[in-house]
């Protein structure tokens, strides 16, 4: 078991009369790539800023290696940040930007130069020392920002939507690279994003947040396959969410049919919600499935077709590589393991 590095306990934060964090409890481990994921205004950036020390929590604790640090100013924390728009100092060149923190520590010039060039090599900007940071491309500025933070050898690197300003292609490339850098330096990365794809592809652990509360913590696979509530199911990927009843363990009822499933532990006849991922559904002949309907719309999405099927009770979205023409009567087939039963959420 890895060691706990940061513990957030009952964190709340109010700005004026607005509550942006409503009791955050989170353990962050050493050498972990953790992502705070959620829509804008969900409190993910505030959480990050509290960890960095730019904001103080209204109540609750931030423990770093077991020591309370919520009142410790940012410059005394072994934590560094990569800012959303990089925040490179415009009048300093690349090397001086990276060396900023080391210079403050009054480190020896030759040591600084050595560290700087090692960092530049790691982020793939060898020989860029004397360049003007304002003339670099977005991706290059991003790398300098990462180097500037990592050169201080922090225990934790915070990244606040660092790829948000980059275009799609460079973003993909940087995702891979960030993951590589994290493995190389072997420290904890806490990454904030609203992009679920980014979160799922890079992280060891994903924390889904909404409305100042944590919705679910888990590995990307868990989060995707076993969403705990409607918000998570909705936010992570596309899904068909259907209200129903849990008749008993391993048996669920929705749309007027009963299905076998793999979920248990719900009270009998509990009202629940079921998630059916579009890619888990198959189009079959009408007589081979319980749920049947008519194809309303077909859109080609590159790899698969997105097929909208209208049944008696609702419309389903299906992602499949098989074509089905509009107007055809079809059946929807899925196995017990494709049904994800969730607790029903109050209105959020």
């Amino acid at each position, binding site marked *: 078991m890895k060691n706990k590095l940061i513990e957030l306990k009952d964190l709340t934060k109010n*700005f004026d009369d607005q509550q942006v964090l409503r009791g955050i409890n989170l353990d962050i481990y050493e050498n972990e790539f953790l992502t705070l994921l959620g829509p804008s205004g969900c409190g993910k950036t*505030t959480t990050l*800023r509290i960890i960095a020390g*730019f*904001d*103080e929590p209204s109540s609750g604790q931030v423990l770093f290696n077991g020591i309370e640090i919520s009142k410790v100013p940012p410059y005394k924390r072994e934590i560094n940040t990569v800012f959303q728009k990089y925040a490179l100092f415009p009048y300093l060149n690349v090397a001086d930007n990276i060396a900023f923190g080391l210079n403050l520590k009054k480190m020896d010039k030759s040591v600084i130069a050595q560290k700087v060039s090692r960092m530049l090599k790691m982020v793939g900007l060898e020989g860029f020392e004397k360049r003007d940071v304002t003339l670099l491309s977005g991706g290059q500025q991003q790398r300098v920002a990462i180097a500037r933070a990592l050169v201080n050898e922090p225990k934790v690197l915070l990244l606040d939507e660092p790829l948000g300003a980059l275009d799609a292609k460079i973003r993909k490339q940087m995702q891979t690279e960030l993951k590589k850098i994290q493995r190389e330096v072997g420290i904890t990365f806490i990454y904030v994003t609203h992009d679920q794809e980014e979160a799922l592809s890079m992280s060891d652990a994903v924390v889904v947040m909404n409305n100042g509360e944590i919705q679910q913590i888990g590995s990307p696979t868990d989060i995707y396959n076993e969403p705990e509530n409607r918000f998570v199911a909705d936010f992570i990927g596309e899904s068909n969410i259907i209200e129903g009843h849990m008749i008993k363990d391993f048996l669920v009822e929705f749309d007027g049919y009963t299905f076998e499933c793999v979920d248990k532990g719900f009270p009998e006849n509990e009202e629940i919600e079921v998630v059916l991922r579009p890619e888990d559904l198959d189009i079959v002949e009408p007589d081979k499935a319980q749920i049947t309907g008519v194809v309303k719309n077909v859109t080609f999405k590159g790899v698969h077709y997105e097929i909208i099927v209208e049944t008696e009770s609702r419309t389903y979205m299906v992602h499949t590589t098989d074509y089905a023409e509009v107007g055809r009567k079809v059946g929807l087939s899925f196995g017990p393991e494709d049904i994800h039963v969730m607790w029903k959420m109050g209105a959020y």
Partner: protein
Amino acid sequence: MRRPKNGGVWMILPLYLFTIVFVAGPLLYVLALSFAKANDGYGVTWAFNLENYKRILDPVYQNTFKQSFQLALTSTVLNCLIGYPFGYFMARLPEKKKKHAMIGLMLPFWVNSLIRLYGWIIILQKKGLLNHLLKSLHLIDKPLKILYSYPAVVIGMLYVLFPFMALSVYSSAEKLDWSLVEAARDLGASKTKAFWTVTFRLTLPGLLSGVILTFIPSMGLFFIADILGGNKIVLVGSLIQEQMTRGSNWPFAAALAVVLLILTTLMIMLYRKITNAKQLEGVGWE
């Protein structure tokens, strides 16, 4: 929005102290003074009364107010007529020429206004350049008496305040999305119609802020009336100055100042109400 306190307090302290003592303090003092009573010789008696304000309505001063208001109005209207096209044309110049025009407009603004007015004295005086020129062209026999007259003061006001108007209109027209004008034309508006319905409407904030920036000073710039108008034109500003120095009725001067201030505030509030803007266009002249 999300900014913690980090040493902001000691930085702000000098500004707070200075502003409270030397800006808010004097203004409040003068407000109090305007309700005091002037002694016969020097000094004031601190007895609350409204005499000073009533005195403003005295027929003796009515004329000053009327004259001052008229002058301000005349110079402001003329300023709009001359300055609006200028600012508008300037905004339509190509980038490079725009910059040059900007410098051209700002440069005189940087030259001491007295120097520039003095230049007008040389031009306008009886034996001055203008008369000399007109005479040699045989347009007039007798020299025109422009200096020390109403028109001379208007010229001076226009001259000093013109850049404010032009810049206000310019900064408003510069921000104008010209594609809106094109859209209006595309939708069938004539050139004139497109101008009045789109361009003029959207540059109105600039024009209005220009009006405020020129109207209020027109009532206070006593030195223009003084050197270009001789003793003939008395502005509210001249009256205040006179009461402070020769008349030595400070409470009355204070009341005049308060009224002028309220007028200024009202105009700015009106402007904000009309345009929903927070700041005057073109005030931060850059």
